[in-house]
C-alpha cells in the first residue's frame, strides 16, 4: 500500500511536469493549447534524433532542443495564436487542435509508426533505483522527474510574482489594452510567455521519452493527463498544478490496485469528481477569476439542470 502511494506520488511528479506548460498557458495566458502533448512529443523526437544520429546524450541534447522550443513558442504566438485570438475565444482552441493534427502527421511521415524511447541513451538511469526499508524501490529517474517538476513550477511561480517581466505577462494576460496604457509591449510579453511555456514543454518531452516509449500519436494522451492535472490543481497558483499532478498520479495508481484496467479510469474518475464538485458544490469557476467563466458556467449549470 505504501509502495503504491509512493509510486503514485512520483508518477504525479511526471504529470505535474507535463502539465506545467499547459497550466501556464491556460491560467496565465488564457490560451488552451491542444497541441501541448504533440509539441512535447516533437521535443522528444528531437532529442531522439540527436541521440541516435550524433550520439548526443538527451541531457546535453536539451541544450539544443530547449532554445529551439523557445523560438518555436515565440513564432507560434506571434504568427498563429495572436492572429487567431483576434477571432474570439474559440478560435485559438481550434487552431491549436489543427496544429496538433499537423504536428502528429508530420512526425508520422518523418519517423513512421515505430515506438521510440530515450531510455537506451541514458545508460542505467532508466532502471536504477534506491531501495527503501520494506523492499520498496524508488526509481532514480522518477525522483529526478519529481524534483524537476517542483523546480519548474516553483521557479515559474516565483518568476510570475517577483519579476517585472512576470508581472508584465500577468498584466498582459488580464488586459492587453490596459497593459499597453502603462507602457507594456503586449506582443513581446505574450511572445516571451509562449517561449517560456514551450521550454517547459521541451523538458516535459525529455522526461516522457526517458521514462517510457512514444510514437507520433502519443501527444493526445499526454495532453489529456496534463489537462487533468492542471484542472484538478485549479487556477490559484502553479503549485496547485503540482498537487493536481500528484492527485492524478495517486488516483491512477490506486485505480490500478483495484482492478488491472483501473489505471486510467481512476484518474478520469477523480478528474470528473473534482470538476463537478467545483461546479456544483462551491460554485467556483474552475477557470479562476477571468471574465467569461463565471457567467459561462452559470449558463452551463442552468442548462444541465433543465435537462435533468
Amino acid at each position, binding site marked *: 500500500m505504501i509502495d503504491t502511494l509512493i509510486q503514485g506520488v512520483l508518477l504525479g511528479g511526471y504529470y505535474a511536469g507535463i502539465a506545467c506548460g499547459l497550466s501556464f498557458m491556460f491560467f496565465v495566458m488564457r490560451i488552451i493549447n491542444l497541441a501541448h502533448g504533440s509539441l512535447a512529443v516533437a521535443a522528444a523526437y528531437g532529442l531522439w534524433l540527436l541521440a541516435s544520429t550524433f550520439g548526443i546524450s538527451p541531457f546535453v541534447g536539451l541544450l539544443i532542443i530547449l532554445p529551439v522550443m523557445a523560438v518555436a513558442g515565440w513564432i507560434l504566438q506571434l504568427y498563429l495564436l495572436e492572429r487567431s485570438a483576434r477571432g474570439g475565444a474559440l478560435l485559438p482552441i481550434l487552431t491549436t487542435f489543427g496544429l496538433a493534427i499537423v504536428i502528429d502527421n508530420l512526425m508520422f511521415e518523418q519517423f513512421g509508426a515505430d515506438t521510440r524511447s530515450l531510455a537506451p541513451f541514458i545508460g542505467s538511469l532508466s532502471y536504477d533505483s534506491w531501495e527503501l526499508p520494506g523492499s520498496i524501490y524508488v526509481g532514480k529517474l522518477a525522483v529526478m522527474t519529481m524534483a524537476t517538476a517542483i523546480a519548474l513550477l516553483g521557479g515559474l511561480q516565483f518568476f510570475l510574482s517577483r519579476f517585472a517581466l512576470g*508581472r508584465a505577462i500577468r*498584466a498582459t494576460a488580464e*488586459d492587453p489594452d*490596459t497593459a*499597453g*496604457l*502603462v*507602457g507594456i509591449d503586449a506582443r513581446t510579453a505574450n511572445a516571451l510567455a509562449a517561449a517560456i511555456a514551450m521550454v517547459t514543454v521541451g523538458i516535459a518531452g525529455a522526461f516522457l521519452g526517458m521514462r517510457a516509449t512514444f510514437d507520433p500519436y502519443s501527444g493526445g494522451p499526454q495532453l489529456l493527463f496534463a489537462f487533468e492535472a492542471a484542472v484538478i490543481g485549479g487556477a490559484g497558483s502553479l503549485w496547485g498544478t503540482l498537487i493536481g499532478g500528484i492527485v492524478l498520479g495517486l488516483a491512477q495508481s490506486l485505480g490500478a490496485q483495484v482492478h488491472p484496467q483501473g489505471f486510467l479510469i481512476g484518474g478520469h474518475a477523480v478528474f470528473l469528481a473534482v470538476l463537478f464538485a467545483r461546479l456544483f458544490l462551491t460554485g467556483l469557476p474552475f477557470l479562476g477569476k477571468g471574465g467569461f467563466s463565471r457567467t459561462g458556467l452559470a449558463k452551463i449549470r442552468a442548462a444541465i439542470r433543465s435537462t435533468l
Partner: protein
Amino acid sequence: MQIATHEQRPGHAFLSASGIHKRFGALVVLDNVDFSMGQSDAIGIVGPNGAGKTTLLSALAGAFPPNFGTITFDGRNVTALSAAERCRSGLVRTHQVPKPFSGMTTFENVFVAAAHGSAVGRDEAYERVIDSLTLCGMLGVANRQADTLGLLDRKRLELARALATRPKLMLLDEIGGGLTDAEAGELVTTILELRRRGIGIVWIEHIVHILLQVTERLICMDAGRIIADGAPRAVMADAGVVKAYLGGTPA
C-alpha cells in the same frame, strides 16, 4: 499657478492634433478636430454624451489610429505609435470605467506601471509606487487584491497607475464620475498636486465645477466637433454650448 519642474516652451504646442477624423463604419465620431496645448497646461473637455470626447482621448492616447489626421507630442509625430510607445514617451491615459489588473494587489498594479512606463531600476520603481500611492491616498489598501476595491479606490488606482509611468501629460477620462462632493474634493487636491509637478492634464468630466477648480481652459465638444474653446466661464456662457446641452436657445 506656480509651475516649477518642467521647462516651459512658450509658443510651442506640446501636444497637438490636426485634422483628426475618426469614423466607425458610417458613423463619424470625430470630424476634422484640431486641438493643441502647451506643456503643463490643464484643459477640461465637456460636452453631451456621444460628443466624441472619449474617442478623442483614445485617439490621442493611441488606442486606435485616426482615419485621417496627425498627432504630435513633445516635438515628435506619434500618429503611428502604439499606446505602449506613447506611454513610454510620457503620454498616458486613464479609463472611464476603471480597469485594474484584478489578479494583482494594488501595489502590484502600480508596480507594473512603474517598472514598464519608462525602464528604471527596481529601487526607483518602488519609490515611484510609494509616491503614486501616497499622492492618491492609497497606501492603506496597497496590499489588497485590486478586485476587492470599491469604486473610489478603483478610480484612484487608475490615476496612481498612470502616475507611476512618470507621465508628462495625463489624459483623464471621467475619473470624478460617481464620487461624492467630499471625494471629488480629494480628487481635486490630487490633480492640483500633479499640476504643481508640471504634469499636463486633459480632463473629460461632466461635473463642471470640479473642472473649473483645476483647469484654465475649457473645450466643449458636440457631434464630433469642437464647438467652443477658451476661458471656462466664457465657454460655459457660449450660446452654442448652451444649445448643445439644453437643445434650445438660451433664455
